[in-house]
């Protein structure tokens, strides 16, 4: 068994496999299947100040090689997350390493959420700032595709919390490395990528979009080459740890991300196909490392020939 310890600056994880926000609920559901404390980290579904109803249905559509979703960040709001039985208190009780994905409709709200989580941070290992959900238009502003706004959001969150900060980057930009540099400059301790890519699918019989929001974020195995390329670009642009995600279905997929320069990975859509997917990715990484006689996963980070 290789050493899977994952060092992300001041955050150390038992292994480099996390769940992608929005694909694992708040951990509770998956704990019925396995002990979620075995994961490097559980990244929970995005949290903002108030409860959010999310988008109308249908919210998902299957497409070749993946799916589109426009859930619209349905969520319970920060207070329920902090105190509700099936949320943070549950995650704490099962000793899950918890990363809280957070967002706001305004820049100010990002700051408020960060401050609230910081004030009750027992059981929170890090925050992941979502500046890139393609399905929620906050006052028409997309924080993740404007360098100045991205910097501003991350700077504000940085000023409100001492927790390690991850910024989740949008792939919907011309040069993702520029955004990585901007958020690191604003104080992000690391970056995660990629979020979904906006897509569309149309029912040709009804001539209607197959999801109510008309467009949705594309995820799944077909996304992987794009994600690997972006991780590669970003890993060469910034010195902070990179968390790679996008279409990871098994251990071999995860290894590609490590070789491209990711220090950790997140499993997303695969959780919907197989509730045990994230655990199987850990096993698959181990198998690869053993097969190649590699003692530690850290040895293959960026080890592209």
């Amino acid at each position, binding site marked *: 068994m290789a050493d899977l310890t994952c060092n992300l600056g001041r955050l150390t994880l038992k292994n480099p496999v996390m769940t992608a926000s929005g694909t*694992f*609920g708040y951990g509770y559901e998956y704990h019925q*299947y396995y002990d979620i404390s075995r994961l490097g980290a559980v990244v929970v579904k995005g949290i903002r100040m108030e409860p959010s109803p*999310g988008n109308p*249905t249908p919210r998902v559509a299957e497409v*070749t090689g993946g799916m589109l979703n426009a859930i619209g960040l*349905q969520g319970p709001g920060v207070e329920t997350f902090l105190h509700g039985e099936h949320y943070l208190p549950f995650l704490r009780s099962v000793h899950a390493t918890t990363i809280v994905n957070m967002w706001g409709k305004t820049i100010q709200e990002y700051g408020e959420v960060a401050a609230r989580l910081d004030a009750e941070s027992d059981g929170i290992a890090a925050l992941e700032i979502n500046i890139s959900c393609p399905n929620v238009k906050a006052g028409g502003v997309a924080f993740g595709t404007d360098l100045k706004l991205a910097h501003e959001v991350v700077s504000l969150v940085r000023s409100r919390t001492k927790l390690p900060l991850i910024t989740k980057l949008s792939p919907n930009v011309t040069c993702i490395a520029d955004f990585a540099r901007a958020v690191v400059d604003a104080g992000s301790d690391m970056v995660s990528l990629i979020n979904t890519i906006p897509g569309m699918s149309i029912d040709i019989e009804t001539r209607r979009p197959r999801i109510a929001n008309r467009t949705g974020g594309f995820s799944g*195995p077909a996304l992987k080459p794009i994600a690997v390329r972006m991780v590669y670009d970003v890993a060469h642009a910034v010195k902070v740890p990179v968390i790679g995600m996008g279409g990871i279905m098994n251990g071999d997929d995860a290894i590609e991300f490590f070789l491209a320069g990711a220090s950790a990975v997140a499993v997303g859509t695969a959780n*919907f196909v197989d509730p*045990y997917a994230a655990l199987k990715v850990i096993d698959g990484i181990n198998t690869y490392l053993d097969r190649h006689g590699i003692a530690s996963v850290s040895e293959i980070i960026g080890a592209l020939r």
Partner: protein
Amino acid sequence: MINGEILENNRLKGDYFLVRFHAPEICAKARAGQFVHVRINDHGDRILRRPFSIHDCAGETLSLVYKVVGHGTKELSELAPGAVCDLLGPLGVGFSDPAPGMTPVLVAGGYGAAATYLLTKQVPQRGLFLLGARSESDVLLTEKYEKAGYEVRVATNDGSMGYHGFVTGLVEQLLAEKPDGKFFFYGCGPHPMLMALAKLLRAHHQPGELSIDHLMCCGIGACFACVVKVKADTPTGWTYARACADGPVFNLDSVYVE
């Protein structure tokens, strides 16, 4: 999650099929109204599972009824006995038993008829099975309900069989025939039918439960894709509940009708 071997996979009529799996672990726990999330293949092009209501559990044999409507169900229909599917379940909240002395009335639309059948084994009382279908060619499983001792009444939209009209028409007839009947209604079918049924039953102060099926993704409550509106103390009067985990069976009292 288990590997279920297909024992048989036969066409019932038209595009409707019945598949039987060897699935003792699922049969041991299944209740009427719950569902099984089926992974049909391991190909990379279509990755999501398909949810199917549990039709029947007999010993170690799980039966599902499905209609070929797209890629997944077409592939499923082509699988021969001996093939294996990855089955996740039983999932979701099933139907509850009626109070003693109440007559169960199962109201199904189309192949919603599949999902109410297990009630005939679960519920000690005998009752009625009211089925609405587009046409005679969509009328399914009525013999099984008759065999189970249920009184069967059929409605078709085109009048090709039974009552000419919607299944809610049969419900109205029943309520007119037996104004003092102590009924407990179970509904499963297309969304517009369920909403019409909910309105009608509410107007007559009748109790019941509805299985509200929706386009599903994870099936275990994590992704929030399959949400349905339920009554809530919010400014809008509703909130979204997950069909897969909070349902698919909801008490009539909690269903939000627009």
